[in-house]
Structure formats: C-alpha cells, structure tokens
C-alpha cells in the first residue's frame, strides 16, 4: 500500500527523499487527476507520497537584489497577489485555471509536471528563471531550459526537490501574452504565446518570444532574438516575413483531444505575426 508522509521539517523531507522511493505532491491539482481512480476511491499512485505544502522553508516569496525568489510550495494565488511578481506572469496567472485551483496549485509543481502546455513554464523561459534544486547535502541552480527535457520529463532526480524559483525582476516592461484555449477560463492551452520587449525611442532594446503547446517543450530561440535587437520599428516590420520563416520549422505541434497540428501551427504563426505588427506597426 502507498505510504503518505507529511514531514514536520524541510530537513526531514530531504532525508525521506534521499531514499529515492518517494514522489512529491506539491498542490496536487494535476497529480490527483492524472492518477485518478474510480469515484469514491483513492488515487492510484505507484510510489510513496511526500506532502510538502506545510514546510515553511518552501513558502516564502522574498526579494534579493533584482531577483524574486519564489519558494517551492508557494501557491499561484499568492504569486498573483504579490506586488513584485512580473506583469507578464500576472497576465498568465489571471488566465490560469480557476481561483479554486490557483489557491492550491504551485509554480514549482507546474514546472515539475513539465506539460508542453504548461503556461507558466512559458513565462519561466521568457524571464530566464533559474531553478534552485536541493537534495540532502547538495544544492544546485539551473536555468529553466536545462530543467525541462520533454513532455512530463525533467532532469529532477527522485532525491531532489525544487526549493525555489528565482526570477529576475524589472526586465522588460512591455508584455504580450495570448492563450488560445477551448474557453477563456479553466482551459488547457491549444497554443500559447508570450513575449516581452522594450524600445529606446525607435530602437529595439530587448525582445523575447516564447511559444507553448506547439513542441515537446517551450520554444524560445535566444540567438535569433539577438539578431533583432537594434532594429528600428520599420526595419522590424520589414523583417516580419523572415521572422515567420525562421519560427515555422521550430513549430512542430501534435494532434490531440484539444486541437490539431494544422490549427496549432497556423495560430502560432499568426500570433507571432500579430505581435510583430503590434510592436513595429
């Protein structure tokens, strides 16, 4: 029978995880559904479960210089309410599931779940988030794109826990976020697009674009973004066909119950095009 442990301290949690036998429930709004059983029966977990919601070490949001450090068990409603949470993340959070789910679901949980349609993962890529990963006696900090490796796949080992997520703040003030779902609220994305940018009068100073749900993980091409920096608005508009041509082969969606390849690809390209027109037109 599956064993459930509610540790009384963070150190105890690390010791329990060191056995390599436990899975973490961090909110559980996805895990409980994924392992759902018949009505009125407990979920079917294959591994023992560690519950971490009550650990104070994981429940802080703190500011260190220009970094916002979000504890591993911080729920999305708290993130939405925090004055320092970046605007583009708030835009995403407002459309994320529903109030009752945001009261339980966590940022670290959304990341560890590593769904290609995970909206907040998009924002973590966009803001160059760094992930603080800890196990008994070891700590490392990895950029988010080195953590997610594929659909439901991350580099996280069973002994490890996401202690916190570091987000640089005050990066780019101008934001653009679009989520395409079956309905406006409480929907899983068919396609999502997030961008931040800034101009110095007519010169593009920063531009970052991310696409979700159209490949095994988030699409972001930092090297390509660099080639756009320094362009004037007019030059950016002239480059629009090149930009679309560049992203076209990167967009490799699948058919599933929510949408299909053709629709996803078309919409993803339309969103990039619309974004460029809005900022350069």
């Amino acid at each position, binding site marked *: 029978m599956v064993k*459930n442990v*509610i540790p009384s301290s963070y150190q105890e949690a690390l010791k329990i995880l060191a056995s390599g036998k436990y899975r973490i429930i961090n909110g559980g709004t996805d895990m409980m559904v994924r392992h759902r059983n018949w009505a009125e029966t407990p979920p079917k977990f294959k591994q023992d*479960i560690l519950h971490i919601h009550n650990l104070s070490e994981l429940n802080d949001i703190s500011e260190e210089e220009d970094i916002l450090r979000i504890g591993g068990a911080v729920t999305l409603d708290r993130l939405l309410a925090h004055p320092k949470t970046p605007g583009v993340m708030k835009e995403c959070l407002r459309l994320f599931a*529903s109030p009752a789910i945001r009261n339980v679901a966590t940022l670290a949980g959304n990341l560890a779940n590593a769904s290609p349609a995970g909206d907040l993962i998009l924002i973590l890529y966009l803001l160059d988030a760094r992930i603080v990963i800890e196990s008994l006696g070891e700590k490392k900090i990895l950029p988010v794109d080195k953590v997610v490796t594929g659909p439901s796949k991350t580099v996280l080992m069973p002994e490890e826990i996401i202690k916190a997520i570091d987000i640089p703040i005050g990066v780019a003030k101008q934001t653009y976020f679009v989520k395409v779902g079956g309905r406006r*609220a*409480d929907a899983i994305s068919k396609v999502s697009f997030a961008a931040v940018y800034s101009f110095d009068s007519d010169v593009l100073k920063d531009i970052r674009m991310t696409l979700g749900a159209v490949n095994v993980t988030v699409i972001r091409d930092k090297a390509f973004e660099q080639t756009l920096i320094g362009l004037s608005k007019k030059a950016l508009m002239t480059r629009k066909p090149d930009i679309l041509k560049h992203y076209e082969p990167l967009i490799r969606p699948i058919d599933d119950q929510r949408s299909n390849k053709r629709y996803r690809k078309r919409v993803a390209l339309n969103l990039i095009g619309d974004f460029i027109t809005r900022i350069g037109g």
Partner: protein
Amino acid sequence: MNEITFTLNGKKVTLSARGDTRFLDILRKELGLTGPKEGCGEGECGACAVFVDDRLVNSCILPLAAVSGSKVLTIEGYRQTKRYEILETAFLKEGATQCGICTPGMIMAAQNILSQNAHPSEEEIREGLSGNLCRCTGYNMIVKAIRRASKSGDGPW
C-alpha cells in the same frame, strides 16, 4: 495510514486515513457531509468546493493531507451564517438554481467573490465563477443573484 486533525465547521475532527485520499470522499463518506458534490472529479466544475483556511478549493482533487491542522468550512457550516441567508434569498429571487447540483459550489464561490470584494462588477463575478460549471441556468441568473446579494448585504460583506 495517517492521523489527520483539522477543524470542520468549527468542530475538531481527528481521523485515520491515507493522506492521499480525496478530501471530498472523506467529507461525503467518512463524515456524512453530502453538500459538496462530485461533478467532474477533476477540478473543472467546482461542485465540490469548500473553504480551507478561508481559501476556496476543489475538494475532489485535494489530498486529505493538505487539510492537516487547517480550518475547513463546507456548505453545511456556511448555512449557519447570515451571509448564507442573503445568498439563499438572492438565488431564490433570481431563479439561480435549477437542478441544484452546482448550487453548493456556486454559493461557496459567491462567498469567495463577495468576501474579497463586497461590490464586484459583472466581469469580476464572472471571473470569480470561472471554476464553476452550471448546465441549467446559463449563468446569467447566478451572476444576477450575486449582484443582488452584494446590494442587499452591504453590512455582512
């Protein structure tokens, strides 16, 4: 098995069960509180909504372990309040209830909306109800009921 203690509608409860048991099953089967309903069983319809430490949650996807040491309020406890009476009257006046399955969750969501903002706009009400499905009313009557409650209940909220 885990021994879990929490406060349920003002009374202390201790029970022994697996920590990953769905909290909805504990409420309905172990404790006999059948106000919270199972609609979708995956956090989409809000019929199972309860408050845990004053925060609205879907009990069908909440593991029992998560309520350890917490204060839980279900529709059965909320019924005893003045706010409930105001909402009940408003729901009746506006015809906001038909088959009734979604109603306990709608009432809890309404309380959640009004406790955060005593005078919500229509948009704010709709956002607050975004995690609750109703297949009968088409929502407009529910939205109207919450607007009515916000007007008639100036004091309580």
